[in-house]
């Protein structure tokens, strides 16, 4: 009896703080959702409704805003541009970073640590800071107003972090495998291509997922490099749309909601990859 009682009281004592924890955590969940829910509510109202009662439930929901945004060819052009930039950047980053990370993780040469330190220099010069120098250089190379220009710059500034992340993953692959492959007559390239890369597929998808998110959301590079509206990416287009249709808030809300859907869907599918990439980059990996 006595033991049951003490057991109960200890569960109570254990559960009361737990209840408190859930309360606080739920409060933060609420804070996360308020801006999102308000945006979606707003997007389902007419322009007048948005002005008179912007934060009530959208009853009845008005889908006209969505129809209007989806009916604009510009939206689809931006979506396409964003996709092109994202895929171009991601393939470039995964390709270049896996080559460099392999060398840094698995090969020995005299100036290795110097080369490695140079390759992490990009971490100290993020694109936001380097944007004007980059713009001037690209103007001289004739790469402004060109999706290639955006892709090349985004690749360049994604390299450092992702080389680090991939290097960590590659170093975790057992050295014995490499020795065995070399004994069997495999070249360094053969080992990289036939053994390491297939084994490192989770790592590659982590890096790809991180790059996709970063590229998809990036504003400054397209903002600075592109002034033809047919080359706008979604973030840039969203910003321009907001300043152009500033009065029609409901329409802006619909546009913003639609442009955020790909990111959310992607996140729900690739959360594991994104999380493993970020934590591998930050922890010892």
């Amino acid at each position, binding site marked *: 009896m006595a033991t049951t009682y003490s057991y109960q009281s200890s569960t109570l004592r254990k559960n009361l703080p737990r209840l408190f924890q859930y309360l606080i955590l739920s409060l933060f*969940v609420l804070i996360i959702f308020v801006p999102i829910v308000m945006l979606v509510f707003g997007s389902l109202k007419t322009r007048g409704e948005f002005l008179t009662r912007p934060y009530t439930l959208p009853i009845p929901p008005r889908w006209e805003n969505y129809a209007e945004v989806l009916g604009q060819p510009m939206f689809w052009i931006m979506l396409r541009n964003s996709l092109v930039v994202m895929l171009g950047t991601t393939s470039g980053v995964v390709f270049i970073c896996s080559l460099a990370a392999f060398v840094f993780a698995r090969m020995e040469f005299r100036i290795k640590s110097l080369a490695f330190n140079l390759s992490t220099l990009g971490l100290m010069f*993020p694109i936001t800071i380097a944007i004007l120098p980059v713009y001037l250089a690209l103007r001289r190379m004739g790469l402004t107003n060109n999706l290639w220009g955006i892709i090349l710059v985004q690749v360049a500034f994604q390299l450092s972090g992702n080389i680090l992340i991939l290097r960590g993953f590659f170093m975790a692959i057992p050295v014995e495998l490499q020795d065995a492959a070399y004994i069997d007559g495999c070249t360094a390239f053969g080992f990289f291509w036939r053994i390491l890369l297939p084994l490192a597929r989770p790592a590659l998808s982590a890096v790809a997922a991180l790059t996709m998110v970063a590229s998809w*959301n990036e504003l400054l590079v397209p903002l600075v490099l592109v002034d033809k509206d047919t080359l706008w990416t979604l973030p840039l287009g969203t910003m321009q749309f907001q300043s152009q249709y500033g009065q029609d808030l409901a329409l802006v809300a619909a546009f913003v909601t639609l442009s955020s859907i790909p990111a959310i869907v992607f996140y729900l599918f690739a959360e594991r990859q994104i999380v493993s990439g970020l934590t591998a980059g930050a922890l010892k990996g």
Partner: protein
Amino acid sequence: MEIASASEDVLDSPRQTRSPRRVQDNLTIVLFLLPAFVFFLLFLVYPILQSLYYSLFNWKGFGPAVDFVALDNFKRILTDRIFMKAVGNGLLIVVLSLTLQLPLSLALALMVGRDLPGRVFFRTIFFMPYVFSEVITAIMWLFLYNPDPERGFINAVLILIPGVKPQPWLGSLTQVMGCLFVVLTWKYFGLHMLLYMAGLQNIPQEIGEAARIDGANRRQLLTYITLPLLGSTIRTSVYLSVLGSLQVFALVWIMTLGGPVNASEVMATYMYRFSFVRFWLGYGSAVAIVMLLISLAFSLTYQRLVRQPDYLSGM
């Protein structure tokens, strides 16, 4: 040498393979590093050197730079009250991040711990804002911060409390930085929480158990076991947070344009304004160089001070 040739004998491979192998390895190294270094050279090193040159000129971006002004641009930047305001705002964001945002993320990570039922759910939700673009985040919060309580949700909630008046938020010289900081926290605390959660996961459970058996209470457990073992994660998170505050741009540019009256100016918006609105490209280049130096100085001192540059080489 001895060992290498011995193993080759064992392999029964011809003796001369050793040097072709070496050549081949070197070739692999060069070819594999080449693309990355070409990118660095073209899009990082060359632009920065070029801007270093332009920063010495009074140049509006058309034609060659001819009006050489030596270090005048730098002198002007360092005496410009608005630039100093931008630096101050950057520091303010750093201080607020380190004193509020990171402790909050850490507290939430500890709260979720390693076994709270639903921890993955909370992580998913809290990290979600990270995948929204800054553009989307800015527009969402613009709606909420509308000073008219009929339109802005925050004021609408606020005036439900008796005696509280609606606030101007982004329109106020004193409130605007706080408002922006709330948005930054909303967007980024999930990232730091994620890092802390992963760091906590990495602490061997036995250490905590041993300490508990030795009679350590919760507080002692936290200060003597958990926090020290979380050290490298905390250092990384601080590093990312400070470098991140240097890079704040889109949120500020869309929500306030650095206003009202430069009250929310940050270095990136300052540089953008001079470079791409006024097209003082020589001056803008100088601003970029100053920002690069600040970033470099911070990275190097931080690495030296904490002596464990985890994010750079601890992997």
